[in-house]
């Protein structure tokens, strides 16, 4: 995790609102946003695109041996989510009684990701909940 105000601030729109971008030249969507389109290169016409947060699990794993940052969270699920608009996003998958499996539909939730001790910043971002 980054540990600075400026880094957090730059990523707020992506992390809070799933704001990525798309190339108007070829229609490809990206999350997180890219400076140039992978297909179009210098012909890229990148514009901001906000993703709805609905998608399905493309891949899922349960983390039992976490990094120190998430030691109080384990065990927890990390998934690769295929958003309905196309891009793949890695994220935490919340437990709500529905077993998260490949193909399970999910929707976005707004959660705390990391808390910097008792005096530091709180990092909020998207997580996904099975529906």
């Amino acid at each position, binding site marked *: 995790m980054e540990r600075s105000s400026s880094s957090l601030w730059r990523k*707020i729109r992506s992390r809070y609102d799933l704001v990525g971008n798309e190339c108007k030249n070829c229609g490809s969507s990206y999350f997180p946003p890219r400076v140039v389109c992978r297909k179009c290169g210098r012909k890229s016409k990148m514009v901001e695109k906000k993703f709805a947060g609905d998608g399905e699990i493309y891949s899922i794993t349960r983390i039992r041996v976490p990094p120190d940052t998430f030691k*109080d969270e384990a065990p927890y699920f990390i998934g690769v989510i295929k958003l309905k608009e196309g891009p793949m996003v890695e994220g935490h998958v919340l437990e*709500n*009684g529905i077993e998260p499996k490949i193909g399970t539909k999910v929707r976005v939730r*707004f959660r705390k990701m990391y808390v910097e001790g008792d005096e530091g910043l709180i990092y*909020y971002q998207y997580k996904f909940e099975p529906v």
Partner: protein
Amino acid sequence: MAGIVGYGAYVPIYRIKVEDIAKVWGEDAESIKKGLGIREKSVPGKDEDAATIAVEAARNAIRHSGIKATELGAIFTGSESHPYAVKPTATIVSAGIDAGNRLMAADLEFACKAGTAGMQMVIGFVESGMIKYGMAIGSDTSQGRPGDALEYTASAGGAAFIIGKEKKQVIAEILKTVSFTSDTPDFWRREGAGFPSHGGRFTGEPGYFRHITNATKMLLEETGFKPSDFDYAVFHQPNGKFPTMAAAQLGFTTKQIENGLLTPIIGNTYSGASMVGLAATLDIAKPGQKIMVTSFGSGAGSDSFAIEVTDNIDAKRKNLTKIMEMINSRKVYIDYSTYLKNRGSIKKV
């Protein structure tokens, strides 16, 4: 007068039963359930706080209202568990709903009524023409000292209301709002203290009942309405018993309050409590019906509202997340040790 153009609520998925708390402290669960009128309460996930709950409620409200978040001219977030002592929850909400930057935002604290105080402020801004739409939120992850009576009720949840005055947008008109306020030391939490303190039985008559009954009587006097003129009534609900007693004292029936009384199944969501009750009532209200709401915040004060549902309410329900469906469909029971872990009281070492 201005009215509600959209609303949304949010309650975390986790629940703990009275039995599981009572077992730890050697208490009799049945007498607590009977005495407090509560069966279980909501518990925030380890990654939830008053800001995440406020954002979830605000997103539901924006979806329901049909307006764009960038049309909001103000966001006020009321809570007694703001995640930061200095740094507003309201700015986190504005970013969490992508409301842009052309808006005013501020946090409020008034124990359990900071959310309805925000509603009154937004009504004033909308009525004056300073803003077109504004959002008021009540959201809390309230704290109960382990072993204290409050531990059975202090829960988590919230609701957001968008206020405006465009006739075609308003689903419920605010006919009148009044407040009754006094300096009453019934419940408090000092800066840096982990849990609130309270005056025990003193929180009842001089606190809750004095303010609830006076604000409600003022509203009835100033509008000319009688309790029977309202189809529904919502009172602040620190437990299941107080609002039932207050309703009886004021001449409201059990039938009028039952739809908005959620504390028995989710606990006291503090700043969210009366607003979540109003949301549950609006979920089932029909055009032309009247709703009376009186909140209460320790310290102390009550805000009372007379609300009339408009013909627009049915058409807007297509994007509504109903609170009872959310409560019943998203539920995971946890035991006391998981509850302590979720609350951050125990950590892996």
